[in-house]
C-alpha cells in the first residue's frame, strides 16, 4: 500500500522576534518527509504569519510512512546570512494509517527548539491517501493497531489473544559520533530526536509484521523503551501482546438496550454465537449460577450498554478453575495439557496485559522475576542486534522456567526494564506466573467436553487465588489453607502479583500503596569487577526489599499485593531498590498474623521494656491501619473451615535469580528458612533501624488514598475531576561518612516527603485517591538521587462512606459495576443461558440496583450529574466572564489509567510516542535546574496535548513517562534532559452527555437506574 502524504501549512502565531531591528520575523516553513523537502513562501515581517500554502504532496512507500516522521521546520529568512531556525515539529503520521483511527491531523502544534523550548505555534493539516496494493512480500504492517493500554481497550473486544511480541533495533547514538565534536548541540539533539523517531517507527512496523504473521490485528500493552548505552549505542526495544480485536458498535447504539433490560435477557439469541459448540454445557450449570450471583449489578450495567456483543468471546469462567483441588486432579492435568499445547507453540507464553477479560485468568502462582548484569560493548553491526536479543532471550527463558516451577504455563503482567551506569547494565524482567483459560488463546478450536466437565462449583472472586502448583510438590516452602471464600481449594497465606486486581476479586476494605525502599553502597570499580560486585549485591537487595514489603503488608493488616514493581537502579557507588505495590485484603486468603518482636538479650530489664514498647507500637499501628482501611473480615468460626487456622508463616512467592555475564544461575530461596517469619529479631542497631523505619511511614492524611494499580480497591464512585501530574526530586547526598543506614534514611525521607508534598498540593481535591502512582528512581551522578513520580488524582463521592457498612460481597458488586464498559460481553451469556435456576433472578437484581440508585434523592442526583461535567461548568463560567470567552484551546485530559472516570471512550485515535531533548547553556537565567525542568515538563505536556487535539481527540489514556533523564553541570551553567512519553489518544464522551442523548429516547422507563448507575461510576 504505497500512499500519498499531503501536508498544508496554514499559519503561525506567537513566533519569537528574530530580527531585533524591526522586532519582527520573516518566517517560512520547510516540510520534509524522507528525502523530499518543500518550502513555503517567506511571510515577511510578522509574528503571526499566514502562509496558507498549497498542498505539499509526498508519494511514498508505506514502509516509509510507518518509519519516517513528518518533519516541519520553521525558519527566519535572512537575505545576507544563513537562515535561522526557529524550531521544529515532528508529526508521527502512523495514526492516519489505520482506518478506524484519525482521518486527518489538523491543528496548532507548538514549535519546539531543543535549546529554546517552545517558540510559538504552527497550524498544519496532514492527510494520507493509501492505495490498496496486495503485495504478499510486504515489509510494512499498516493497519495493525497499537495500544499502550494494558487491558483490552474499552471499545473493542478480544477475539483471540495471541501472545507475546517483541523486537529491538540498535543504532549508534549520534551524541557519541565523531561528528558531534564539530556540530552544535542543537544539531546533535535534533539528530538524536530524529533517529529515535525513525527507530521507533521501524520497531513498530517490525512488531506489526510479527502480529500479522500471528494473524492478529492489534498490539495491546505496547511498551517501548530506549536504552541509552552511551558509547556502545542506542537500543530501542518494545514488547507487547498481539491480539485480534473487534470493534464494538458506537455507544449511542447501546442506549436503547438500557430501556428494556428484562426483555433483553430473553432476546439475546444464542445463535448470535458463531461457535455454538462451546456452549454445549447446556442451559445452566451450578457453576454459572454461583458465579453470577456474585455479580448481578455488573451484569446489568454492562448489559445496558451492549446489545451486539459477540458471544463467542464470552469466557467460560468455569474453565479449569476448579481443577486444583482434590476432585480436580485429572481435570487439572487435562486442562494443563490443553493450554500447554496452545501456549507451547510460542516461544514465550508472556502477556503484557495487567487486566483481563473475565475468565481469562484462572490461577495466579506468584511473582516471577529475573535479573542479569551485563557489560556493554560497542554494537558493531547495528543491523544484527544479536547480542542484545540473546540477553533478553536468556532472561525470558529464565522467567519461563520460574513460571513452570510454580506450576504455571504463562506469565501475565509481564514487563522488562534496564538500568545503565557507565558500561554496566542490569536487565530486569518480571511478571506473574499464571494459569490461563485456553479459550482466548486460539481460535474456535476449543474443547467442548473438557469445558463441560470442568464446570464445577466455583465461586467468583477467589478462583485466581487458588494455587496452581501441586500441593505435595511445592516449588518452595509455603503454607496453605483452604480458601476462605469457597472452602474447597487451597490458597497461600500471602499473594504477590504484578497485575491489577481482577474485577471479580472479593476485597475487604480499601487498599493502599506499599513501598519498600533500599540503598546499598558499592565500591567504585571498573568493568568486570564492577559487574561482579553488583551481581553479588543483587540477591541481598532482593531479599531485603521482599522482607520490607512483607513486613509493611503485615503492618497494614493485608494479605496480598497487586501491581508489584521492583526497580533496581545502579549508580557509580550504590544500588537502589524501590518496590511499589498496592496492598489489599483478599477475602479468600487467611487473615495475616501480627508482627512479633524478639530481643536477643532477654535478661536485660530495660531492654525488655523497650522491646515491649516497640511491640505495643506495632500492634497499635496494625489496629489503626485496620480501622483506616476498613478491614473488618467477617468472623469465621474454625469449625466451618474444618481445619485449624494455621499459624501464619512467611513464605516467598518470589522466585528469581541473578546471573552475571556468565550463564551461572543462582536460585534464591527467599523464605526465612526455619525461622518464624513474623518474628522480627532485634539483634543489633541495624535491626532496630529497620523496625523504626517500618513505623515511620506516615499514612496519607484523611480523605486521601493512594495505590499504584488502575483503580483503588474499595472505592467506586469516582467523580470526573482528575489531575495528572509529574513530580521530580533530586537530592544531593553529603559525600561524608555515607553509610547504608544514612542512605536508607535519606532515600526513605525523600520518598515520604515527596508523597507528603503531593498530598498537600492536592488537598483541594479531597476526598480523592492517587491512582497509578508510578515511582522511578535513578542515580544520575555520584551523589545524586532522582525520584520521578507520575500519578493521577481522582476525586470520589463521599457518599461512599455510607456503603462501607455493607458486606464486602455487595461492595465487590458495586466495584464490578463501576467498570461496566470493560466487560461488555460477559453478562449477556450469563443471563441468557442460566436464567431459570439463577439464585438471584436478574430481574430482581435489576430492581434492586434500580432502587438503590433511585434511593438517592432526585436533587442530589442532579448535583452529581452537574459535577460529572466540568466542561459544562467551564462553559457556564465562560459565559459569565465574557472577557475570556474567546479561548480557543480545547481541554485535553491526560491520565495514566486506561479509562476516564464518568466518561465513555468512544474512539482510539492511535498511539502517542514522543521523545524530546532539551538543553540549555543558560541554566541560571532559566531559573536553575528546577526552573529548567519545570518548564520542560510543562512543554512536553503541551506538545502531547497539541498532538492529541490535532488528531481530534480530547484525552490521552495509559499515559506514561517512560524516561526522564536529567543531567546538569551547574559550573558550566548547562543542563540537558531527555523525556520519553507515550499513551493512547482517545475521544471520550461524558456520561452526562450520553445521558442527554438517552433522555431523548422515547421509552425512558428504566432511565433512573441506568443513568444513576452511570453517573456514580
Amino acid at each position: 500500500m504505497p500512499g500519498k502524504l499531503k501536508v498544508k501549512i496554514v499559519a503561525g502565531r506567537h513566533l519569537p522576534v528574530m530580527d531585533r531591528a524591526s522586532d519582527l520575523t520573516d518566517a517560512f516553513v520547510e516540510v520534509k518527509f524522507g528525502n523530499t523537502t518543500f518550502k513555503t513562501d517567506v511571510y515577511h515581517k510578522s509574528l503571526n504569519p499566514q502562509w496558507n500554502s498549497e498542498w505539499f504532496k509526498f508519494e511514498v512507500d508505506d514502509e516509509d510512512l510507518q518509519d519516517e516522521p513528518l518533519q516541519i521546520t520553521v525558519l527566519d529568512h535572512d537575505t545576507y546570512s544563513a537562515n535561522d531556525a526557529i524550531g521544529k515539529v515532528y508529526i508521527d503520521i502512523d495514526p492516519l494509517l489505520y482506518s478506524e483511527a484519525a482521518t486527518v491531523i489538523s491543528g496548532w502544534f507548538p514549535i519546539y527548539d531543543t535549546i529554546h523550548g517552545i517558540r510559538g505555534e504552527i497550524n498544519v493539516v496532514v492527510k494520507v491517501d493509501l492505495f490498496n496494493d496486495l503485495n504478499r512480500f510486504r515489509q510494512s504492517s499498516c493497519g495493525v493497531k497499537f495500544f499502550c493500554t494494558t487491558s483490552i481497550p474499552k471499545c473493542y473486544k478480544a477475539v483471540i489473544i495471541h501472545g507475546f511480541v517483541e523486537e529491538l533495533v540498535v543504532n549508534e547514538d549520534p551524541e557519541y559520533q565523531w561528528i558531534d565534536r564539530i556540530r552544535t548541540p542543537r544539531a546533535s539533539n535534533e539528530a538524536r530526536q530524529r533517529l529515535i523517531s525513525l527507530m521507533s517507527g521501524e520497531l513498530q512496523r517490525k512488531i506489526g509484521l510479527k502480529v500479522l504473521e500471528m494473524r492478529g490485528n492489534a498490539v495491546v500493552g505496547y511498551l517501548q523503551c530506549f536504552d541509552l548505552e552511551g558509547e556502545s549505542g542506542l537500543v530501542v526495544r518494545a514488547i507487547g501482546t498481539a491480539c485480534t480485536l473487534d470493534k464494538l458498535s458506537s455507544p449511542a447504539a447501546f442506549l436503547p438496550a438500557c430501556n428494556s433490560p428484562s426483555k433483553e435477557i430473553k432476546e439475546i439469541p444464542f445463535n448470535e454465537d458463531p461457535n455454538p459448540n462451546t456452549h454445549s454445557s447446556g442451559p445452566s450449570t451450578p457453576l454459572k449460577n454461583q458465579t453470577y450471583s456474585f455479580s448481578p449489578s455488573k451484569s446489568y450495567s454492562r448489559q445496558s450498554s451492549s446489545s451486539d456483543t459477540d458471544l463467542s468471546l464470552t469466557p467460560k469462567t468455569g474453565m479449569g478453575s476448579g481443577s486444583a483441588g482434590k476432585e480436580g486432579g485429572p481435570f487439572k492435568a487435562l486442562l494443563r495439557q490443553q493450554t500447554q499445547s496452545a501456549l507451547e507453540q510460542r516461544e514465550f507464553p508472556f502477556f503484557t496485559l495487567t487486566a483481563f477479560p473475565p475468565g481469562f485468568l484462572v490461577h495466579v502462582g506468584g511473582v516471577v522475576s529475573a535479573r542479569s548484569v551485563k557489560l556493554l560493548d560497542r554494537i558493531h553491526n547495528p543491523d544484527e542486534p544479536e547480542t542484545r536479543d540473546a540477553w533478553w532471550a536468556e532472561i525470558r527463558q529464565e522467567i519461563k522456567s520460574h513460571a513452570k516451577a510454580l506450576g504455571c504455563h504463562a506469565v501475565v503482567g509481564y514487563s522488562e526494564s534496564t538500568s545503565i551506569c557507565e558500561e554496566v547494565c542490569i536487565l530486569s524482567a518480571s511478571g506473574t506466573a499464571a494459569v490461563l483459560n485456553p479459550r482466548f488463546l486460539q481460535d474456535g478450536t476449543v474443547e467442548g467436553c473438557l469445558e463441560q466437565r470442568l464446570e464445577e462449583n466455583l465461586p467468583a472472586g477467589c478462583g485466581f487465588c487458588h494455587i496452581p502448583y501441586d500441593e505435595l510438590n511445592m516449588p518452595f516452602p509455603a503454607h496453605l489453607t483452604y480458601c476462605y471464600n469457597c472452602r474447597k481449594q487451597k490458597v497461600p497465606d500471602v499473594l504477590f502479583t504484578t497485575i491489577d486486581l481482577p474485577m471479580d476479586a472479593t476485597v475487604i476494605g480499601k487498599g493502599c500503596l506499599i513501598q519498600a525502599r533500599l540503598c546499598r553502597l558499592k565500591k567504585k570499580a571498573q568493568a568486570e569487577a564492577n559487574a561482579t560486585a553488583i551481581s553479588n549485591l543483587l540477591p541481598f537487595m532482593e531479599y531485603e526489599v521482599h522482607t520490607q514489603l512483607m513486613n509493611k503488608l503485615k503492618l497494614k493488616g493485608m494479605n496480598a499485593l497487586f501491581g508489584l514493581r521492583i526497580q533496581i537502579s545502579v549508580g557509580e557507588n550504590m544500588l537502589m531498590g524501590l518496590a511499589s505495590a498496592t496492598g489489599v485484603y483478599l477475602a479468600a486468603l487467611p487473615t495475616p498474623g501480627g508482627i512479633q518482636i524478639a530481643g536477643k538479650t532477654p535478661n536485660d530489664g530495660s531492654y525488655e521494656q523497650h522491646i515491649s514498647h516497640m511491640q505495643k507500637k506495632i500492634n497499635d499501628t496494625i489496629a489503626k491501619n485496620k480501622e483506616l482501611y476498613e478491614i473488618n473480615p467477617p468472623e469465621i468460626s474454625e469449625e466451618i473451615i474444618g481445619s485449624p487456622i494455621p499459624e501464619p508463616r512467611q513464605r516467598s512467592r518470589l522466585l528469581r535469580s541473578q546471573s552475571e555475564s556468565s550463564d551461572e544461575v543462582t536460585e534464591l530461596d527467599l523464605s526465612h528458612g526455619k525461622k518464624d517469619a513474623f518474628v522480627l529479631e532485634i539483634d543489633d542497631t541495624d535491626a532496630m533501624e529497620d523496625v523504626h523505619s517500618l513505623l515511620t511511614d506516615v499514612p496519607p492524611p484523611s480523605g486521601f488514598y493512594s495505590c499504584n494499580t488502575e483503580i483503588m480497591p474499595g472505592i467506586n464512585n469516582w467523580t470526573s475531576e482528575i489531575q495528572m501530574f509529574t513530580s521530580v526530586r533530586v537530592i544531593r547526598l553529603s559525600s561524608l561518612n555515607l553509610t547504608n543506614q544514612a542512605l536508607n534514611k535519606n532515600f526513605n525521607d525523600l520518598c515520604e516527603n515527596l508523597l507528603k508534598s503531593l498530598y498537600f498540593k492536592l488537598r483541594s481535591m479531597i476526598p480523592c485517591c492517587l491512582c497509578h502512582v508510578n515511582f522511578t528512581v535513578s542515580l544520575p551522578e555520584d551523589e545524586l538521587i532522582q525520584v520521578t513520580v507520575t500519578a493521577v488524582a481522582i476525586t470520589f463521592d463521599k457518599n461512599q462512606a455510607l456503603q462501607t457498612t455493607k458486606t464486602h460481597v455487595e461492595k465487590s458488586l458495586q466495584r464490578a459495576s463501576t467498570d461496566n464498559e470493560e466487560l461488555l460481553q460477559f453478562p449477556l451469556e450469563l443471563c441468557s443461558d442460566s436464567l431459570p435456576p439463577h439464585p438471584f433472578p436478574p430481574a430482581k437484581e435489576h430492581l434492586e440496583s434500580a432502587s438503590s440508585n433511585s434511593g438517592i434523592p432526585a436533587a442530589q442526583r442532579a448535583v452529581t450529574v452537574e459535577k460529572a461535567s466540568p466542561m459544562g461548568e467551564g462553559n457556564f463560567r465562560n459565559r459569565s466572564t465574557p472577557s475570556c470567552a474567546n479561548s480557543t484551546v480545547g481541554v485535553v485530559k491526560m491520565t495514566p489509567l486506561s479509562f476516564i472516570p464518568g466518561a465513555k471512550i468512544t474512539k482510539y485515535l492511535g498511539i502517542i510516542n514522543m521523545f524530546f531533548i532539551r538543553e540549555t547553556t543558560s541554566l541560571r537565567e532559566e531559573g536553575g535546574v528546577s526552573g529548567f525542568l519545570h518548564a520542560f515538563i510543562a512543554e512536553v505536556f503541551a506538545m502531547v496535548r497539541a498532538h492529541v487535539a490535532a488528531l481530534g481527540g480530547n484525552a490521552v489514556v495509559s499515559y506514561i513517562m517512560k524516561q526522564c533523564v536529567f543531567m546538569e553541570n551547574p559550573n558550566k551553567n548547562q543542563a540537558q534532559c531527555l523525556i520519553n512519553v507515550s499513551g493512547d489518544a482517545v475521544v471520550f464522551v461524558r456520561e452526562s452527555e450520553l445521558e442527554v442523548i438517552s433522555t431523548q429516547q422515547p421509552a425512558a422507563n428504566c432511565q433512573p437506574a441506568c443513568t444513576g448507575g452511570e453517573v456514580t461510576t
Partner: protein
Amino acid sequence: MASELDIFVGNTTLIDEDVYRLWLDGYSVSDAVALRVRSGILEQTGATAAVLQSDTMDHYRTFQMLERLLHAPPKLLHQLIFQIPPSRQALLIERYYTFDEAFVREVLGKKLSKGTKKDLDDISTKTGITLKSCRRQFDNFKRVFKVVEEMRGSLVDNIQQHFLLSDRLARDYAAIVFFANNRFETGKKKLQYLSFGDFAFCAELMIQNWTLGAVGEAPTEPDSQVDDMDMDLDKEFLQDLKELKVLVADKDLLDLHKSLVCTALRGKLGVFSEMEANFKNLSRGLVNVAAKLTHNKDVRDLFVDLVEKFLEPCRSDHWPLSDVRLFLNQYSASVHSLDGFRYQALWDRYMGTLRGCLLRLYHD
C-alpha cells in the same frame, strides 16, 4: 540532604489563590512561607514547613513563567503550555492587574516614565507596599498606557479587549491612563483627602464629555491627528471655553446671573446669605478655571484650582452637600435665561461635567 531539584507539574496547572496573592504582593519565598505558617495552614493540613517551602517555590515558579503571558493576556488564552480553566485564567489576569489604592494615589497623574519609576523606592517606603509589587503595578499602568495610547475608539473597550479585564477594572485603568496622559496634578496636599475613586469618577465624566471621542465625530480622513480620541481633551473645546469668560467679565451679565440664581434659591438654601455674599467669587472661580484650560499647565492644575476656587470656600462656610447641589444646578441652569449669552451648548458641556465632578469631590 539538600533538594537540588524539586518540581511538580500538573496537566491542569494548579493555582493557589493565597500564594498568588502573596506573590503579587511582592513577598519573597521565605516571607511568603512565614506568612503561610502564620495563617495556620500547617495545623489545618498537618503538613511540615519543608512541604510548605517546596509548595511555595513551585507556585512562585509557575507564576514567574505565567508572568510573561500575563503581560499580554490574550496570549494566556491562546498559549498551549499551561492548561488552565477559563475561570482561573480570568482570575489570574484580574488579580495581576488589580492595584493598591495607596499606590495608585501616589502615581496618578504622573508621567509614566523612567523618572517616576525611580521614585518607586520612596513610594514603597511611604505606602508600605513592597517595591516588587510597586514595580508590577507601575509596569501594568505603563503597559496598558503604551498599548492603548495610539488606538482609536473607546478607551475602556480598548483596554478590555487587549487586557481582558473586568468592566470595573478596565474603567479604572481608563482613568489612570487618562490622568497620566493629561498629567493632572493629584499629589498636592490640598488634594490628599480625595480618593482614587473620586478621581476615577471625574475621569470618566471628562472622557465622556470633554474628549474628541465624546463628540462622536469620527475622523473622516484616517491620517488625521485625532487618533487617541478618548485620551486627549478636545483642543477646540478648550479653546472655545475662553468665550465663557464673558459671564464674569461682563458686569451686567454677572449681576443678572447672580440675581437669577438668588431669586430661585431664596428660602431653599440653608447657606443662602453666604452664597449671596460669595456668588461672584465662586462664579469667577469656575469660569476662570474654564478659561485657563487652553494652557497645559492649567489643565494639570484643574483639580487644585477646583479645590481652591470652589470647594474650599464652600467648605469653610459649611455648605451642606445638598446645598452645593442645589446651587450648582441653579447656577448652571440660570445661564440659559441670560439672553446675551450665546454659548449655551458650550456651557452645558463644561458645566455638566464640572458639576458632576464638584459634587463628587465635595466631601471631607
